C-alpha cells in the first residue's frame, strides 16, 4: 500500500515527519519498505505559456517554440512532443533547473537550433509514468513564473507499506489513519457523507436480484445521473498518482479514490446500457462467455461471479467489467456498485482469468460488509460535486444480515499471562481508546467492541497482540522458561550425524542436492521404460520439467554434481550426501504419503590427491569398498558382508563390478562402478564409482560393542598360498578357511593375489596369513598343524584349490 503523507493528513493531523511515522509503523508491525520523496529533487520548473510553436525545418518531429516564463523576453525552446501547441500553459524547466535523478538542464542545440530549457512531461517531473506527451496545465490557475510543484501542492512523500495478510484493512487510507492515531495520538477526522439527492427514487430506476448470497452477501447500488465526463480535480489526480494509479477521468478516478480511501472497490456502470434496468448477481455457467473491457473473450469455469443485466453478463464481479456497459466519454448516467463478494470465488476467478487488480486484491482479502453503503455514498457525493451529476434518492441494497458488532471479552490478567509483562486495566483501556475501540469494564475483564473494519480481531489473543505491538514489545523482559527438561537428539538423528562426521573424516565432501529430479535421469540410469515405468512421485506444479519428479535414489543428484564439477575442471571429486528418497504407494500414490527412506549416497571420480612423492590412488571399486569397510564399524555396524549383485537389477552399474551390501541378512544397498554409458550420459569422461545405502538398515544393526579383553597368550601364525580357479569368490574361500580352522583360528587376512605365469590361465594364487590363538592357554604345535591340514583339505575338497 502506497500511502501519501499529504493525503493521510486529510484524515488525521500527522504531527511527526514521514520518516518518523515510517519508523513507528514498522515497529508496530506495518513494515514500511521505503519512503519515497516526490518532487524533492525538482527545482526551477515553472509554469510558462507557449507563445509560438512551429515545425522544425530540419526534423520531422521537433518543434521550435517560444515561451513566456515571466523572466522577461520570450525564451526559445525546442520540443519533441507531438501535443505541444501555441497558447498552452506548460511546465517549463529553465536553464539551471534540476529534474529527478539529478538531471541538470542546460543550454542545448537540437538539430542545429539552440534551446534554452525544456518543456516537461509528467514522467520527466517524476510525478507519474505518463510520457505520452508534455503535461498541459491549462485550467489549473497557473500564471507564468509560478513554481509548478509548489503551486499545485505536488511535493509529497509516499510510504510504501508492506502489509501482512491480516491487515488488509490498511489497504484503505482511512484505516491507515486509525492506525496512525493509535501510534501518535490525535483523532481521525469524521467524514461527512452528506449530499443532496435531487433525483428520483433509485428503487424505481433499478432492481437488483442476488441469486447466491454466499457468493455475494451484499450488493448495494446508488445512481447519479446527468454527469459530464471530464478530468477529475487535480488534487485527486495527485493523490491517485501518489498511490500508483493513473488518473483517467472524473468517474473512474472517483471510483478509484473511494476504493483507496475506504478499501471498498466500486464498479461504475453506464446505466443507460443496462438492459431491463435490472442487475442480477449469479454464478457463471460452465463454458459461458463474455467480452471483458480489455477486448478479450473470456470463457468461464462455472465458479466465477457474474453481474448480469436482464439479458446477459455485463461484468466479472470484482475482477473486470464488460465492454458494453463500461463508462465512456458519452456516458451521462452512472450506476455505482458497492458490493461484498466471496473472497475465495474472487481469488479463483482472478487467478484463472489471469487479471489480478487492485479491486480483486481487496475482495480476496475480504472487505468490510458493514461499510459498503458508506463507500457508495462517498462516490455519489463526489460525483455530484466533481462530475456535475444529480443523485437519485436512496439506494438499492440487497444484503444478508450484516453481522452484529463483535465484542471480545478480554481478561485483564490474560495480557500479562501471554506476554510476561503486566498491564493494568487502565493501561489496556488506553490502548483500546487509541485504536478507537469502545470498551467497558466487566469484572476482572473488559468487553471490547471491535470496529467492523478490523476483521483480524476475533479472540482475546488478538487484543493482546494489539497491546503488545503498541505498548509492550520494546519493554519486554528476556526470561528463560522455568521448565526443566533434558534435551536430546534421538538415535536416528544422532546416527545420521555420526555418518556425516565419519564420511567427512574419511575424505568425502558433503553435498546437498535437490530432492526433485528430471524424467531424463531415469533414461540416463538406463532403467528400462524410463521414468514412466518407474512411476516416481510427480509434482503437479513443478517449476520446470527438470525438477518435476521425486528422486528414488541419491545417485542422479550426486552424478549431476560430479558432472558439474568435472565440466569446471574439478576432475577429482569424492562426494557424499545424506538425504531422503521417496517411494510412492501402489494405490493412490498422489494422495497417500510415500515411503521416505534416509539414504547415504557416495560418488567418487578421479584420483586421491597426488603428492610430490607420487602415489595418487584412483577412485575405484576397491577404494569405495574400503571406505565402507572403515565407515561401517566406525558407526557401530560390525557384522556385514558384500555379495555379487545381479547385474540386471542395476542397469546403471558396470555388470562385472557391482555388489550388494548385506547387513543382518538384509540388502542395505548397492555399490559399484557406474556403467560407462551412464557416466557418459552425465558427461563424465572418466570412471565413477558409487553407492546408495539405506541408513535405517544400518541403524537396525548397530550394536553396542563389548570388550573381549586383550589376548594374554601368544599367537601362532602360518601363511598359506593356494592355487585354483579364478571363478571362485574369495569370500567363499575365506568362509571355508574360517570354518575348517575352527575356534582356534582368530584372524584370516588375504595378502596377495597373483595371476599369470607360471600359473596356468584361468587360475590364480591366493595367499592368506592365518593367526591362531586361544584366550585361555597357549596352543601346541600339533593343534595348529591339525587346523592347517584341515584348511588345506577343505580348500581341496570344496574348490579344488591346492597348495602352491
Amino acid at each position, binding site marked *: 500500500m502506497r500511502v501519501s503523507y499529504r493525503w493521510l493528513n486529510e484524515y488525521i493531523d500527522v504531527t511527526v515527519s514521514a520518516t518518523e511515522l515510517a519508523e513507528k509503523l514498522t*515497529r508496530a508491525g506495518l513494515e514500511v519498505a521505503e519512503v519515497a520523496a516526490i518532487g524533492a529533487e525538482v527545482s526551477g520548473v515553472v509554469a510558462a505559456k507557449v507563445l509560438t510553436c512551429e515545425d522544425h525545418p530540419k526534423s520531422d518531429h521537433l518543434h521550435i517554440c517560444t515561451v513566456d516564463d515571466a523572466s522577461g523576453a520570450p525564451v526559445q525552446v525546442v520540443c519533441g512532443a507531438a501535443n505541444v501547441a501555441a497558447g498552452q500553459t506548460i511546465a517549463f524547466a529553465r536553464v539551471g533547473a534540476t529534474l529527478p535523478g539529478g538531471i541538470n538542464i542546460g543550454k542545448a542545440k537540437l538539430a542545429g537550433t539552440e534551446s534554452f530549457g525544456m518543456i516537461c512531461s509528467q514522467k520527466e517531473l517524476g510525478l507519474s509514468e505518463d510520457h505520452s506527451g508534455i503535461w498541459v496545465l491549462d485550467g489549473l490557475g497557473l500564471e507564468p513564473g509560478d513554481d509548478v510543484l509548489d503551486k499545485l501542492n505536488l511535493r509529497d512523500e509516499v510510504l510504501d507499506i508492506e502489509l501482512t495478510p491480516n491487515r488488509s484493512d490498511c489497504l484503505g487510507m482511512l484505516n491507515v489513519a486509525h492506525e496512525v492515531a493509535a501510534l501518535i495520538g490525535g483523532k481521525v477526522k469524521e467524514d461527512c457523507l452528506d449530499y443532496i439527492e435531487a433525483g428520483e427514487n433509485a428503487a424505481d430506476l433499478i432492481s437488483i436480484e442476488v441469486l447466491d448470497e454466499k457468493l455475494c452477501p451484499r450488493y448495494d447500488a446508488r445512481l447519479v445521473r446527468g454527469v459530464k465526463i471530464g478530468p477529475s480535480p487535480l488534487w485527486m489526480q495527485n493523490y491517485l498518482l501518489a498511490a500508483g494509479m493513473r488518473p483517467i477521468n472524473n468517474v473512474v478516478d472517483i471510483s478509484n479514490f473511494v476504493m483507496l480511501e475506504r478499501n471498498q472497490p466500486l464498479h461504475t456502470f453506464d446505466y443507460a446500457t443496462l438492459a431491463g434496468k435490472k442487475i442480477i448477481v449469479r454464478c457463471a455457467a460452465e463454458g459461458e462467455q463474455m467480452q471483458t473491457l480489455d477486448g478479450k473473450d473470456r470463457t468461464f469455469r462455472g465458479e466465477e461471479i457474474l453481474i448480469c443485466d436482464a439479458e446477459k453478463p455485463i461484468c466479472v464481479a470484482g475482477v473486470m467489467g464488460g465492454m458494453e456497459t463500461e463508462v465512456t466519454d458519452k456516458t451521462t448516467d452512472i450506476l455505482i456498485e458497492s458490493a461484498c463478494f466471496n473472497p475465495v470465488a474472487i481469488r479463483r476467478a482472478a487467478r484463472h482469468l489471469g487479471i489480478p487488480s487492485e479491486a480483486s486484491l481487496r475482495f480476496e482479502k475480504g472487505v468490510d460488509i458493514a461499510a459498503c453503503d458508506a463507500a457508495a455514498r462517498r462516490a455519489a457525493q463526489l460525483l455530484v460535486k466533481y462530475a456535475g451529476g444529480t443523485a437519485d434518492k436512496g439506494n438499492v441494497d440487497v444484503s444478508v444480515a450484516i453481522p452484529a458488532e463483535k465484542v471480545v471479552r478480554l481478561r485483564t490478567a490474560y495480557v500479562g499471562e501471554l506476554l510476561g509483562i503486566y498491564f493494568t486495566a487502565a493501561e489496556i483501556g488506553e490502548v483500546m481508546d487509541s485504536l478507537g475501540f469502545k470498551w467497558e469494564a466487566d469484572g476482572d475483564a473488559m468487553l471490547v467492541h471491535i470496529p467492523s473494519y478490523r476483521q483480524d480481531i476475533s479472540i482475546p489473543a488478538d487484543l493482546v497482540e494489539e497491546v503488545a505491538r503498541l505498548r509492550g514489545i520494546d519493554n519486554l523482559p528476556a526470561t528463560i522458561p522455568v521448565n526443566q527438561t533434558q534435551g536430546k537428539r534421538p538415535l536416528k538423528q544422532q546416527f545420521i550425524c555420526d555418518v556425516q562426521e565419519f564420511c567427512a573424516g574419511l575424505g568425502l565432501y558433503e553435498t546437498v542436492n535437490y530432492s526433485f529430479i528430471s524424467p531424463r535421469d531415469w533414461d540416463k540410469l538406463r532403467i528400462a521404460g524410463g521414468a514412466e515405468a518407474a512411476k516416481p512421485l510427480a509434482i503437479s506444479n513443478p517449476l520446470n520439467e527438470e525438477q518435476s519428479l521425486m528422486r528414488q535414489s541419491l545417485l542422479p543428484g550426486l552424478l549431476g554434481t560430479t558432472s558439474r564439477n568435472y565440466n569446471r575442471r574439478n576432475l577429482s571429486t569424492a562426494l557424499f550426501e545424506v538425504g531422503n528418497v521417496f517411494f510412492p504407494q501402489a494405490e493412490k500414490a498422489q494422495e497417500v504419503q510415500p515411503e521416505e527412506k534416509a539414504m547415504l549416497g557416495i560418488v567418487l571420480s578421479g584420483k586421491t590427491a597426488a603428492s610430490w612423492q607420487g602415489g595418487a590412488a584412483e577412485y575405484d571399486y576397491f577404494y569405495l569398498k574400503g571406505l565402507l569397510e572403515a565407515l561401517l564399524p566406525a558407526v557401530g555396524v560390525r557384522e556385514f558382508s558384500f555379495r555379487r549383485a545381479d547385474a540386471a537389477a542395476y542397469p546403471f552399474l558396470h555388470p562385472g563390478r557391482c555388489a550388494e551390501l548385506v547387513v543382518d541378512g538384509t540388502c542395505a544397498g548397492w555399490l559399484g562402478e557406474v556403467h560407462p554409458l551412464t557416466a557418459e550420459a552425465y558427461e563424465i569422461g572418466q570412471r565413477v564409482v558409487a553407492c546408495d545405502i539405506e541408513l535405517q538398515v544400518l541403524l537396525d544393526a548397530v550394536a553396542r560393542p563389548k570388550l573381549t579383553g586383550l589376548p594374554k597368550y601368544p599367537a601362532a601364525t602360518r601363511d598359506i598360498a593356494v592355487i585354483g580357479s579364478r571363478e571362485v569368490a574369495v569370500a567363499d574361500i575365506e568362509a571355508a578357511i574360517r570354518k575348517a580352522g575352527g575356534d582356534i583360528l582368530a584372524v584370516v587376512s588375504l595378502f596377495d593375489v597373483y595371476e599369470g605365469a607360471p600359473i596356468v590361465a584361468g587360475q590364480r594364487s591366493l595367499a592368506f596369513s592365518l593367526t591362531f590363538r586361544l584366550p585361555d592357554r597357549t596352543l601346541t604345535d600339533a593343534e595348529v598343524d591339525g587346523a592347517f591340514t584341515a584348511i588345506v583339505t577343505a580348500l581341496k575338497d570344496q574348490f579344488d584349490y591346492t597348495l602352491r
Partner: protein
Amino acid sequence: MWEKLQELKLKAEGAINACTDIDALNEQRVALLGKKGEMTAISRGMGALSAEERPKMGQAVNEVKQFIEELLAKKKDELAAAHLQQKLEEERVDVTLPGRPAAAGRRHILSVVQKDMEDIFIGMGYTVVDGPQVELDKYNFELLNLPKEHPARDMQDSFYFSESMLLRTHTSPVQARTMEAAEGKLPVKVISPGVVYRRDDDATHSPMFHQVEGLLIDEHVTLADLKGTLLAFAQQMFGADRQIRLRPSYFPFTEPSVEVDISCFNCGGCGCRLCKGTGWIEILGSGMVHPHVLEMSGYDPEKCTGFAFGMGVERIAMLKYGITDMRLLFDNDVRFLQQF
C-alpha cells in the same frame, strides 16, 4: 719392563686417538688388550720378576690397562656421537616441502550450521524431532490455522502432488504431529530441523531449503520467555554481545506474532551494508502459539500457552559466513565445499 709399559701407554694413546671409526677402534682394542695383544705380552713377563718387584709391576700394569680401557671407552663415545651427528646431518629434509596428503573431507556448511543450531537448543532442553517431507495438507496447513483458500497460504507457495498432499513448506507439520502424539501431555519442547520446499527460485530463494523450528508448550509460557530463549540462541550463534529486537508481524499459527532482528554483528549496530544501515538484521519469525492451533491439537488454551519460532538455516549460514548467493549452497562446487 717398566720402559716397555710406558712405551705401550704412549703408543696406545697415539693409536687410539688416531682412530676415525668404530672398526679401527675395535682393531686397536684387540691389538692392545686382546689375548694376543701387547698388554698380554707384557703381562706374561711378570713371571720373571722377583717377589718384591711383582706387586709393584702388577699395579703398574693394571694402571696402564685401566688407562687404555678408559681411553677406548672415551673414544668409543666420541666416535658414536660423531657418527650420530653425521647421520642426523645427512637426514636433514626441506621441512617446507608439502606433507603427504591425508584423505580429508568436509561436512556441508548447511549441515554444520543446522547441527550447531540443534546443539544450542538441545542444550536448552529441546528434543529433536523429525517428520516426513511429503506432507498432508492437514498437517502442513489446516492444523496450523490455515484452512483451504486462506489468503496467507500465498505466503508459502507450494509444490503439490494433489489437493491433499504436498511438499512441506515449513517444518511446522512435525510440530503438529508431535502435539497430536503427545495427547495433551506437558511440556512439549521440541525442535524440528529439516528440508522444506517452496515454489520460488532466484538469488535469494531456493525451491528447497532448510529450516529449524522450535515449539514449547507448557503452563505459564510467555512472550518474554520466547525473547529470552531467542536471545540466548542469538548470543550463542552470533556472539555474546548480540542483542535482539522483536517486531510485530503476522503468521496464521501464532498470535501475537513477532519477527526477530539481531543487532548487526558486522557493524555492532551502527549501520552498515549488511544491515542496510539499520543496525538490525532479521533472522526469524515467531510468536505465541495461536489458541486455535492449541485447540486443534488437543490442548486447552485456558490451561497452557506456548511459543513457536522458525528460522532458515540458509539465512543463518549466509549471514554468518558471508555467502551472498544462495545458489552456491546447492551448486556443490568442490572449491566452495572446501572453504568451510
